């Protein structure tokens, strides 16, 4: 596993997401200061709405789990696992992410 530098911490938006490119793949980075992990990386692709928009969804904390609600049709995806709460069996890719000395890293295998 290798940590890849994505951007500076100040590029993130508190309590919301931004899109980034990781080896040709679109990902969404969420900055959640209240969460233990603080920064999450998931795929930017909404498999239901079929568009690269998850970075523009609203963060929702449901039953203690951090999720993003797709801005298109509002399905929730867990930031940690990528699981979709509304569609059983559907999940999206996620990556490990971390904040270190003001920089944002995502793990690639």
């Amino acid at each position, binding site marked *: 596993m290798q940590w890849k530098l994505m951007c500076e911490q100040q590029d993130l938006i508190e309590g919301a997401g*931004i899109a980034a*490119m990781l080896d040709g793949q679109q990902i969404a980075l969420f900055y959640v200061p209240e969460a233990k992990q603080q920064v999450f990386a998931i795929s930017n692709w909404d498999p239901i709405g079929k568009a690269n928009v998850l970075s*523009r969804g609203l*963060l929702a904390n*449901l039953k203690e789990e951090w999720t993003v609600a797709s801005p298109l049709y509002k399905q929730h995806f867990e930031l940690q696992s990528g699981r979709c709460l509304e569609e059983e069996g559907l999940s999206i890719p996620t990556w490990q992410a971390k904040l270190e000395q003001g920089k944002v890293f995502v793990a690639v295998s």
Partner: protein
Amino acid sequence: MTINRLTTDKPRLVVVGNGMVGHHFIEQLIEQGAQQQFAIYVFGEEPHLAYDRVHLSEYFTGKAAADLALTDGQLYDQHGIGYFTNSQVVAIDRDAKSLQLASGDSLSYDLLVLATGSYPFVPPMPGHDRDNTFVYRTLEDLDAIRDCAAKVSRGTVVGGGLLGLEAANALKNLGLETSVIEFAPRLMPVQLDETGGQVLKEMIEGLEVSVYTATATQEIIDGEQAFHRMNFADGSHLETDLILFSAGIRPQDALARQSGLEIGERGGICVNNDCLTSDDSIYAIGECALWNGRIFGLVAPGYSMAKAAAAHIMGASDKRFMGADMSTKLKLLGCDVGSIGDAHAQTQGCKSFVYQDELTQSYRKMVVSEDGKKLLGAVLVGDNSYYDTLLQYYLNGIDLPNNAQSLILPSMDGAPAALGVDALPATASICSCHNVSKQDISDAVCAGALSVGDVKGVTKAATGCGGCAALLKKVVDNELLALGVEVSTDICEHFAYTRQDLYNLIKIEGIKSFAELLQKHGKGHGCEICKPAVGSILASVWNDYVLKKEHIGLQDTNDRFLANMQKDGTYSIVPRIAGGEITPDKLIVLGQVAKDYGLYTKITGGQRIDLFGATLAQLPEIWEKLVAAGFETGQAYGKSLRTVKSCVGSTWCRYGVNDSMGMAIHLENRYKGLRSPHKIKFAVSGCTRECAEAQSKDIGVIATEGGWNLYVCGNGGMKPRHADLFATDLDDETLVKYIDRVLMFYTKTADRLQRTSVWMENLEGGLDYLKEVVIDDKLGLADELERSMQHVVDTFQCEWKTTLEDEQALKNFRQFVNYEGGDENVVFVEERNQIRPATEAEKQQLIAKAG
């Protein structure tokens, strides 16, 4: 584990077939603890364990085999059930009670359950086995179809039944020019009557799928332009590259036949109500079983058979199989189709009601008993919202109301007449996939399942096809009410308050941020329900800039990016054009900007110009140009005042009695910054000819000889409602005063996303009460309402202008934080000389060409 080495002291129970029904049977056994008594083995022919064949098509739309899997072997391992995939059972020796496998192994059994399912019927026409011909049954079939479709351009489905149309949809989504060929004179001949089939045919043809009914294929030979040529009985022909047979199923009864079990005349293993075959140590369940002369080709009856067989094996007799309802509701190629009971009106003496609307292509038929009291069957094409209610009348034999036809007539206030769940008997089947009755749900609620989610967990209701989810919610709510449990009006799990409560808290306590409100009155960290609602309240009370650091995370995508998100993730841009009045210079700027950025341009329903297809990163540059040319944000993205539509009034029109144009511009500029619970629209007409259609708006103003007539709380949209006349012959000042008060009272007291029409209907006393508050100032609130509105008016800012001046806010609009390129999934094609988003099929074609 090799089969020959299996040893056990327990009697052996062997299941042949690991499809949906075979797997459900194992689940039933496990639930009843059968693994304590029996050594259980399962044999499946396919390389995968059981998977969801009902949703097979989703394999084409992104689901992996693992997503469709019903089990991953863990369940079997955990309960000590031996399972073998890729294992075909080729013979049964009933005397020796042993099975012969294709591998050469054999295995003895004490009890045998055949769940061998069915196979697709392929009409034996010459050429049916050519290359590039397929059936639609297994994941392997779908892999082969996908591989073939990637190389060719035309596909044809033989069979216009339920599965055939689903397969046609799949071919269409794979980018093929698609045709459907049905031997019968209409589509879905089993479920639909003649007119229903015809309406469905027209709808499907409208989706660019060619449909040939009453067409028999005689042979398939080499084509000239395409891979195949299908010659039809009437001398015509069709050329196509890929053929998919979906002409019905046949029970897979070869094993049973070979072993001498009793078989029906036209196939199927004969079973009794316990699903026992003519051999009392062999059961048959699912599509291979023939019960009372019938084969059931749906999963729900198969599940019922699995339950019956499992219960009988475990010594219970209360779950006998007594037949099954074959009513179906589905969406085929985007068209609603429903069929209930005796759809063909074959019952002696029955009568029918028919409703047909050729404009919207909908067709509905009810078949009722001779005395008109009971529903015997129904056909629905085009709109399935009538299905649930009709099904309940049918399944539960509920007496029809006096004007039974109202059950299929379009209802003037939007929703079809619904059967109150109170009227359903306790035995009413709510979820037919898992056979859950109203009583089961009631029991679950009494036992402590107090939410729909909990009830789903306990009863499995709504976890099959999901078609009963809405009904389930109603039943659960009804049961909770009956128990005296208050059905929560909390906005969400983070705030135990309504929107109105939150408004009051924010206003009275002077709360300025979501974090502060959460800390004082909420719990957790918020969600997509409470955040935008609070964001909107904060904006309507304090009118802060919405992209401030502490507010940005509250905004739904449209508010966050100050534009309207479209289906492909691009945005549309709607600058304000107050009253629809625009100078030629400004028109030219809009045209030039649209041209420079290649945007699609359309006049909106509210007399503005909408520019579509801008990417996130283009928004600031485009708005920079628009702001420089004197435009300001149209707030067409927000829950706020959208447009004030207008005619030209007395300025130009020979009938106009007052300056509607001037008034429209004045009103639009006054209320343009107001954040409200729902979007609101106005219109001003210059005379009673009503060219601006003011009576279909939240606020409508119509000029009279004596001043202005004010109409309130109307709307278009899903459930149109005419506005009510609120006051007559008002002067300009009084008109504005009343509008201030109505709008602010609405903003303060309505629920989240509640339209003015619903809000007024829910006010106790309705229109008269609203008049008392606004005109007579019954609550003494008039001054306060006007002051609140004046604050909003005075603090208006163009959000785009503010954003362009704010470095921090602009960072929000980068497409990617670490990459300069754009989104490759955003692809446009041209239509009528402008761009539009490419469909999935077009994208796949473009990719195929590029590859």
